[in-house]
């Protein structure tokens, strides 16, 4: 895995980027934090933030020209936040005595500061604090320069005097009535280690570096109005602070320019979408200053700009409370660890790889791709936790074994007469269609593994429909596309699977695949672009529905689009067309079509982190008051098990007389296997008239209470596992016995898992009390 590329991707994420207000504050007050403290009513903490970032905060807080406000994103939704008024309120309600600073020995160098206006005072105070000996030259007989012009309603004369007295109290040497000219300046440059020139009235043009404010290569630095060329106090203070930093670096003989990209104002890449933000009108102050309550209300209007679009849409990112920026860093760490615990494994296996994050991100950052690469890398480095995907991969192997897998060409006209050749009855569409086979397999129906597992009785009906409605022969191909291997990062298995599918495709002379499952569609697009595919739902939409009169009760449904079909807008249309043809009204969800969410099954999260999967289910099903319509089997099964009435398109197209399709329960893991096998057998028998071996009878008649069934599902234990344990125990008597209860406890290792079954015998029945398993092995001596 290319970790540099990974980090680059993470660095593009703007989650941590500052808001426009802070970016346009020349001294970078942390405005969101500042406002958050006010919102909490903690004016003291807000005050500390001002103190930390704003030079002479008690003066500037009263007179700042607040460039931040004109960039406030809130202006489009009720008016910019009154940041300057909030600062005044904080000075009023949160002011604290300045911290006592012990003077530092002045041993680092001598600096002359020319001009005791705001920028010069900032330089003097900043460098004094750092241990430089400062001499301040002022042409008048008082400190403050143009600050005195601001005396008025906000800034009182006595307050300004008080603040300026603090400078004197520091013991900085001040020389008043010093009108300096060019010659005198040259003298000072020789006399001092560095000179700061902040005299607004300096006539001579000076060439300076706009980043460092250094003049030529001299020990002369400038700031204030000569640099800002405006009357802004905050820009002036900022220039002084930046010049002070340059002087410090200059005198410490380190680079003047390193890591200073974002000094002063800068453009933040953060973009805040306020299109859905509620308009709230600015709070007007009732007297000369906000009351505490007014300030709190005004603070509440702040949007707290931060890009969380991907997180807003994704239950996974929110559950782990992580932005792509931080996520990528954790993956990077996880990938680099040699000795130690890979703490991010669980998180990495809890992403559904649905792709919504990329859809929501205006920078197209795709965590889906990052996670996929990461899982593949974990597998390659042998660091993928085996238990995370083991069951799903075994399930895939089952589907591709002889117990389900099947490839057949369409039976000949003679053989299939009873099945497909129906006379057209003019008053109804209730026909399976005329036989129009050609002998060449134009289409191969590939229902996937989950549709036959959940809808075993409908696969034959769908096949009959296809044979009757599309041009050319329709073969059938049962198997698993490999989606579990893809999600598990198992490129080895994926490659084998793809080759197997390709081989069938070639042998069948390259037919178009008809796909019913959205995961299959995704896998075919990703790995088998050479194979032409068509969605089953597109065919229903185009050719018409088989049972037109079957609509029972017209109602409103919300469509949950399958995340695997995110980019397939034609398919989204087809599904809506089918639903409306059937007489249903559709109410769209906020997250639908290309912005749809995952049901919680994707990425094998259902197996790797059931709690996370449940989180997706719970969030999605409460997004609509209506019944949900889906067209992916796993979406249906998960939503129903979450307690939501959910129809699969199959429930609507092939309704059952005595059944409410919307509450049809998910088959158990064992039933899924049995159903798939049953589909294969019944197709072979009923369509191809082939002899079929019936499955071997179970050895024992098991009686399993509901609580144990639930444990089987949660612990991924199949009926066949229990049968095998019991059989082994009964035959070998290798088991434990509890004379008090009469129960037996037996275990058997199957592949990598040891299964334990506690049971009792009652006549010819085996009563199952409990089941569990572990992967750790006992080393037999």
């Amino acid at each position, binding site marked *: 895995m290319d970790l540099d590329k990974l980090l680059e991707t993470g660095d593009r994420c703007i989650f941590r980027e500052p808001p426009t207000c802070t970016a346009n504050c020349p001294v970078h007050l942390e405005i969101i934090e500042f406002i958050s403290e006010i919102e909490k009513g903690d004016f003291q903490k807000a005050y500390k933030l001002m103190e930390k970032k704003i030079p002479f905060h008690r003066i500037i807080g009263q007179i700042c020209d607040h460039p931040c406000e004109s960039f406030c994103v809130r202006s489009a939704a009720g008016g910019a936040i009154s940041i300057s008024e909030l600062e005044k309120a904080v000075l009023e309600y949160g002011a604290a005595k300045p911290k006592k600073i012990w003077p530092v020995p002045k041993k680092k160098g001598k600096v002359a500061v020319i001009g005791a206006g705001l920028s010069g005072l900032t330089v003097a105070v900043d460098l004094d604090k750092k241990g430089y000996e400062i001499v301040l030259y002022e042409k008048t007989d008082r400190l403050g320069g143009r600050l005195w012009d601001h005396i008025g309603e906000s800034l009182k004369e006595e307050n300004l005097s008080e603040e300026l007295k603090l400078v004197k109290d520091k013991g900085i040497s001040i020389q008043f009535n010093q009108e300096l000219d060019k010659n005198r300046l040259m003298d000072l440059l020789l006399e001092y280690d560095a000179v700061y020139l902040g005299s607004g009235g300096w006539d001579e043009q000076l060439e300076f570096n706009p980043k460092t404010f250094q003049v030529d290569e001299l020990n002369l630095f400038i700031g204030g109005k000569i640099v800002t060329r405006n009357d802004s106090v905050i820009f002036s203070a900022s220039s002084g602070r930046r010049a002070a930093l340059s002087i410090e670096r200059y005198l410490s003989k380190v680079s003047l320019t390193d890591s200073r990209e974002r000094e002063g104002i800068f453009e933040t890449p953060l973009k805040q979408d306020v299109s859905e933000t509620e308009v709230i009108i600015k709070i007007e102050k009732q007297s000369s200053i906000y009351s505490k309550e007014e300030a709190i209300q005004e603070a509440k209007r702040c949007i707290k700009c931060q890009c969380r679009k991907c997180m807003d849409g994704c239950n996974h990112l929110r559950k782990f409370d992580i932005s792509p920026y931080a996520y990528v860093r954790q993956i990077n760490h996880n990938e680099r660890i040699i000795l*130690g*615990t*890979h*703490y991010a*494994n*669980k998180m990495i296996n809890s992403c559904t790889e649905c792709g919504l994050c990329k859809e929501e991100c205006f920078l197209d950052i795709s965590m889906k791709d990052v996670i996929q690469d990461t899982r593949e890398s974990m597998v390659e480095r042998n660091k993928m*936790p*085996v*238990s*995370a995907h083991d069951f799903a991969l075994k399930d895939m192997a089952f589907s591709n074994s002889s117990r389900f897998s099947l490839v057949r060409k369409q039976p000949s006209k003679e053989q299939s007469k009873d099945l497909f050749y129906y006379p057209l009855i003019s008053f109804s569409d209730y026909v399976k269609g005329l036989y129009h086979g050609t002998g060449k397999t134009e289409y191969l129906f590939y229902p996937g593994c989950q549709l036959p597992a959940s809808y075993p009785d409908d696969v034959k009906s769908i096949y009959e429909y296809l044979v009757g409605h599309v041009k050319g022969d329709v073969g059938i191909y049962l198997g698993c596309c490999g989606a579990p291997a893809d999600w598990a990062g198992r490129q080895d298995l994926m490659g084998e699977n793809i080759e197997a599918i390709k081989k069938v495709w070639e042998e069948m002379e390259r037919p178009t695949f008809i796909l019913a499952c959205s995961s299959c569609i995704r896998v075919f697009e990703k790995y088998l672009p050479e194979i032409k595919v068509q969605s089953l739902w597109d065919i229903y939409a185009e050719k018409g529905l088989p049972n037109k009169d079957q609509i029972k009760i017209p109602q409103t449904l919300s469509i949950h689009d399958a995340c695997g079909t995110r980019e397939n807008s034609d398919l989204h249309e087809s599904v809506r067309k089918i639903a409306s043809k059937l007489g249903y009204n559709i109410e769209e969800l906020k997250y639908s079509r290309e912005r749809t969410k995952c049901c919680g099954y994707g990425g094998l999260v259902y197996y790797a982190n059931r709690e996370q999967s449940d989180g997706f289910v719970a969030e999605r099903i409460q997004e609509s008051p209506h019944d949900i319509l889906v067209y992916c089997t796993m979406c249906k099964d998960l939503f129903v098990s979450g307690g939501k009435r959910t129809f699969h398109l199959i429930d609507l197209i092939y309704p059952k007389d005595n059944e409410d399709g919307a509450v049809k329960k998910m088959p158990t893991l064992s039933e899924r296997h049995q159903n798939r096998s049953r589909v294969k057998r019944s197709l072979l028998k009923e369509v191809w008239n082939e002899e079929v071996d019936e499955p071997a009878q179970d050895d024992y008649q098991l009686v399993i209470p509901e609580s144990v069934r639930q444990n089987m599902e949660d612990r991924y234990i199949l009926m066949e596992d229990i049968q095998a344990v019991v059989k082994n125990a009964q035959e*070998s*008597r*290798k*088991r*434990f*016995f*509890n*004379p*008090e*209860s009469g129960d*037996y*406890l037996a*275990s058997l290792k199957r592949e990598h898992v*040891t299964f*334990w079954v506690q049971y009792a015998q009652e006549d010819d029945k085996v009563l199952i009390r*409990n089941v*569990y*398993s*572990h*992967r*750790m*092995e*006992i*080393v*037999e*001596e």
Partner: protein
Amino acid sequence: MYQEKKDYQSWICDKCQKELELTKVKVHYLEGEFEVELLNCPTCHQVFINESLALGKMAEVEQGLEDK
């Protein structure tokens, strides 16, 4: 990993009809191999693992080793 007496007092080895005893047993998973005291039959040495051990401490150690 350890087992308490109450976990096993009722169980006996069905084959040997012996009461179980706590002795050191070797277990391993992935790269990890340990010796732990587990209940087993003094005659045939089949090891007894109850639900709380399998789903508790054992699962925890398995997870830890998988994340190593």
